[in-house]
C-alpha cells in the first residue's frame, strides 16, 4: 500500500467510528418516534 493510500484508508477507517455512533443514534430516534407516534403522543395539539 502506498503512503497516500494508507493515509486515506486510515482517515476513512477512523471517521467510520463516530459515523456508526451517529447512525445508531438516528436509527434509534427514528424507531422511538415511530413507536411514540403509534400512540396519541405525537398528535398535533
Amino acid at each position, binding site marked *: *500500500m502506498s503512503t497516500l493510500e494508507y493515509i486515506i*484508508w*486510515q482517515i*476513512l*477507517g*477512523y471517521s*467510520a*467510528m463516530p459515523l*456508526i455512533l451517529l447512525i*445508531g443514534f438516528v*436509527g*434509534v*430516534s*427514528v*424507531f*422511538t*418516534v415511530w*413507536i*411514540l*407516534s403509534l*400512540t*396519541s*403522543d*405525537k398528535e398535533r395539539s
Partner: protein
Amino acid sequence: MKLVSNFWRKLCKPSNAAVGVVIGMGFVGGILFWGAFNTGMEATNSEAFCASCHEPIVNEIKETIHYSNRSGVRAICSDCHVPHNWADKIVRKVQASKEVFAFVMGNISTEEKFYARRKHLALREWQRMKENDSQECRNCHDFDFMDFSEQGQRSVKQHSTALASGEKTCVDCHKGIAHQLPDMSDVPGWQ
C-alpha cells in the same frame, strides 16, 4: 423532504409519555442497535462469508496445520486477517470495502486471475503483519509461553535469537503458513 421535516417536528415535540418510558425506549433501542451491529460484525468474520469470494483459498487451507491438527484448535480466516481490538477491527473492515469494489471489478474473479494477482496481495498482507508485529499470530501464539524445551532445535535456534530480540516477526520467517506461496523470486530471504 416532507418526511424529514415531519420527523424533525415530532422529534422536537416534547413527549407526553413518562420520562421513564422514553428513556426506556432509548435504552432498548440502543441495545437492539448494538446487537444488530455486533451480529453484522460477527457474520462478516465467518469463514463462510470469506469463502463467498475466496473459494480457492478455502480449499487450500484444509491441508494445513491451522485447519486440522492433533489439538483440534482451528484458526479461521478472521483469526489471522482481522484484528481483534475494536478500533483496528473497524478500520480493517472499512478498508475491506475496497475488496468489495475489487470484487465488482473482477480482480480475482477466476482462479487464473487470482494466481496472477496473488503475489501482490501476499506482499500487502506481509507488510500489514510486519507493521503490527504479527499481532494476529500472537493472539494465539504467545512468545512468553513458548517452551523452548518442547520445540525442535531449528525452532529454538531462530526463536531464541531473531524473534526474542524483536529483530524479526513471525511472518518474516513463517510465510505461507496457511496458504500456498506465490512465486517467491525476489522476496528477500527466499531463493
